[in-house]
């Protein structure tokens, strides 16, 4: 009998664009199951690692948050280029989420109301270091192709666990009653 092939760990990259980090917190809500997970995967670029850019051979990219500024667009393109499978995690990544409620307002009015009112500063920050906001917040699938969607605000730890274990086992992820939530 042949010895089993040494299993290559899948490379997982994660990021938060116009997100609140709630989906990442919910990811950590898988609690001690993260020890089972790191047997199967290694983390590449992610807020929980110190890696600055995606390796070119990432298997899975998990993204929370919609797209609200120019830097978000660059990061999203980097993920699409380097990850075989891209997952939109959470309501923001899927339909813009609550940040997209700004879409009914003019972006200049919003910035002026926050930064250019008496007692709140003199002008809208204009340093080129700061990424410009887009006119509207967009869900990820309006910018790049997304392979899977994991709804919830945030998805529960159990939903994330079910989703990832389905995916890692080669099944199409499904969330039944109780795990599928938009809120």
């Amino acid at each position, binding site marked *: 009998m042949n010895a089993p092939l040494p299993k290559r760990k899948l490379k997982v990259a994660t990021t938060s664009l116009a997100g609140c980090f709630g989906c990442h917190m919910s990811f950590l809500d898988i609690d001690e199951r993260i020890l089972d997970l790191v047997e199967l995967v290694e983390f590449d670029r992610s807020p929980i690692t110190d890696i600055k850019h995606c390796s070119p051979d990432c298997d899975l990219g998990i993204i929370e948050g919609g797209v609200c500024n120019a830097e978000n667009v660059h990061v999203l393109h980097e993920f699409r280029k380097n990850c075989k499978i891209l997952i939109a995690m959470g309501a923001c990544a899927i*339909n813009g989420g609550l940040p997209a409620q700004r879409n009914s307002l003019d972006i200049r009015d919003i910035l002026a109301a926050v930064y250019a009112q008496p007692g709140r500063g003199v002008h809208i920050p204009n340093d080129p270091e700061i990424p410009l906001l887009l006119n509207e917040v967009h869900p990820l699938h309006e910018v790049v192709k997304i392979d899977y*969607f*994991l709804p919830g605000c945030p998805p529960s730890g159990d939903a994330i666990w079910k989703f990832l274990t389905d995916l890692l086992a080669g099944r199409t992820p499904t969330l039944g*009653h109780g795990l*599928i*939530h938009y809120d």
Partner: protein
Amino acid sequence: MSDPKTFFLDEEEIPFEEGQTIIQAALTAGKYIPHLCYHPEFKPHGSCKLCTVRIDSRTVTTEDGQSVKIPGRAAASCTTPAQAGQHVESEVPEILDLRRTLVQMLLVEGNHYCPSCEKSGKCLLQGLAYDLGVMDPHFPQYFSKREVDASHPDILLDLNRCILCELCVRASAEVDKKNVFAISGRGNTKHLICNSESGELGDTNLAATDKAANVCPVGVILHKRHGFEVPYGQRRFDKAPISDNPVQYAPVKEQV
């Protein structure tokens, strides 16, 4: 005495009375067919199309011996009368795919930000989407930009969530006899309006106890000061999926 009339819903025999539509007979028999604009107390409307079924598909054998399924006609089960011996398909992959697409279209058309909606957990559109396993919006967002109408002392209107089922229009005209609501505009500019000179809800004679103020299946017509009263986990569709209860409205009455 003549035999009771029956038809077949997904191969199951369903009895019906003369004049009943397919959805009426199915719901009476305890079989759920998805629906949003259908309400047992009102005439069928036929706008949501979620109750679409296929009627009388047949399988024929071709000359070279292959079986080919010829799909029957697609029809809204809320407006199609039940007929004896009819074969109706509802819970089949093709119809479920169609319903999923319809729900996705409704979800991208409005601003359905469930995380901040007071109706979340007891919204029929959301419950239906959960039941159909809708994981993605598929289409680009429309980002509707309608103003919220908070002019009424007890009722709030968020028109960005309206699915144009016209239940409030029908309830106000037929039950309350007040004609508070109407649908105006054409195509994607179609929207709910209030029947007052100012166009504001506050200038109509709508009362919080009116049928029209309590019939909205989604989060458009909301009662002020009554948000988020049921704990997460105990809301209607937290406890049971929408398909567990064949008739979604009767006899549930919204708390005012």
